[in-house]
């Protein structure tokens, strides 16, 4: 049986590079309802390239929702209209025949557009480099469960660690704040015994870099949590704020 294809009108953001002015360009596509959103763009790119036109640039890697590389704003929503999924997990069956779809890059001052739908999220790497780690003396890997951790704490830390660093929280926020991302990274260590030695130094360093990079402030609208593909909770932001205040009160640690 011939499968019924969807006819869609795409309005896709095209921008040559970070210095040029971009605009929406119209494309009409016929696509299988079983195709993923990114597969639809792959097909469109193949037809564009066959005509000698440049491909629409967008990023992706694992295409199974765990790497955090993909990220498009689809009809106004980072990662599209469905909750708790990344762009790569969005399928065309969720759209109606004849529908118009607007596709934009993640927009934030700290995420400059590189080309079309591709943005520079290296700011997140810089934040992680500032404190997203625990320092461990080198040597053999410790045995699992050598340090007992209560299940409820382990679960909270795991929920925070589920963050894939995609940047949807920044794109969703009217202030382009990175608080959900940074707080998830701070929390995953702050909750566990291994994170304690650097706990307060870490939060200060990461927040400092976050502010320097031009991410905005948090005004508690919770848009980040609503759009997060991994449902990272805003309670992480409260925990980070608490640790940040505590860091000011606590005596400075001795730097080695």
């Amino acid at each position: 049986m011939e499968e019924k294809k969807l006819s869609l009108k795409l309005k896709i953001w095209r921008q040559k590079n970070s210095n040029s002015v971009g605009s929406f360009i119209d494309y009409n596509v016929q696509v299988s309802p079983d195709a993923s959103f990114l597969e639809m763009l792959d097909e469109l790119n193949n037809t564009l390239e066959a005509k000698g036109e440049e491909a629409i640039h967008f990023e992706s890697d694992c295409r199974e929702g765990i790497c955090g590389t993909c990220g498009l704003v689809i009809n106004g929503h980072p990662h599209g209209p469905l909750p708790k999924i990344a762009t790569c997990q969005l399928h065309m069956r969720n759209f109606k025949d004849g529908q118009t779809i607007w596709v934009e890059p993640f927009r934030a001052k700290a995420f400059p557009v590189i080309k079309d739908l591709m943005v520079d999220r290296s700011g997140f790497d810089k934040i992680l480099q500032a404190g997203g780690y625990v320092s461990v003396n080198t040597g053999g890997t410790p045995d699992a469960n050598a340090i007992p951790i209560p299940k409820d704490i382990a679960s909270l830390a795991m929920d925070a660690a589920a963050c894939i660093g995609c940047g949807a929280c920044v794109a969703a926020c009217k202030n382009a704040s990175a608080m959900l991302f940074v707080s998830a990274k701070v929390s995953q260590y702050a909750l566990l015994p291994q994170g304690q030695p650097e706990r307060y130094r870490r939060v200060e360093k990461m927040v400092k870099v976050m502010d320097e990079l031009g991410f905005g402030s948090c005004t508690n609208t919770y848009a980040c949590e609503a759009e997060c593909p991994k449902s990272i909770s805003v309670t992480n932001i409260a925990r980070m704020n608490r640790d940040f205040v505590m860091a000011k009160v606590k005596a400075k640690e001795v730097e080695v």
Partner: protein
Amino acid sequence: MQGLADGYFVIPYTIGNYLGGDKPVFIKTDHPEFEKVAGEVKNMTNILLSIKGKRTVDDIHKQLGRIMWNKVGMARNEKGLKEAIDDIRELKQEFWKNVTIPGSGDDVNQTLERAGRLADYFELGELMALDALERNESCGGHFREEYQFEDGEAKRDDENYSFVSAWEFAGESKWNLHKEPLEFEYVKPAIRSYK
């Protein structure tokens, strides 16, 4: 497969101390090898962009993928592998003559990136087929249909193939085989059956 690959179990116990003793230094790019490779990449980029043919990278990539899927899969045989090598070489020629890559090499160009990876895939795909053809036994993920027991179990040839094949690149479509022998001191290889 990840669990089987060398290093997966060893690395966590060893790399920490290795990295711990290594002081990171700033690496400059003025080394002659670096300049040589940078020049080669630039040259290849220019060649790829200047072909301006009729077929897209995606189109050729899929055709190569189908050859690999059909003839260089987990179960492979001499006839199929020989055909695959011919098919890959023919398609490689087509790629270098008829691929089209819009855009330039001065900016981000994902089509150009994919074309570079496809060029690598031609090389690796051909070598995989050659290696599979050379190994006249069935072993692990390599099942040569000619070498099996009556019940369909893999038939190894430990007499002639107890070695790892390390292929050294020796120019276009040429590789030299170096045999790294596998020596078993305590546990001797035996027929493995999951029945």
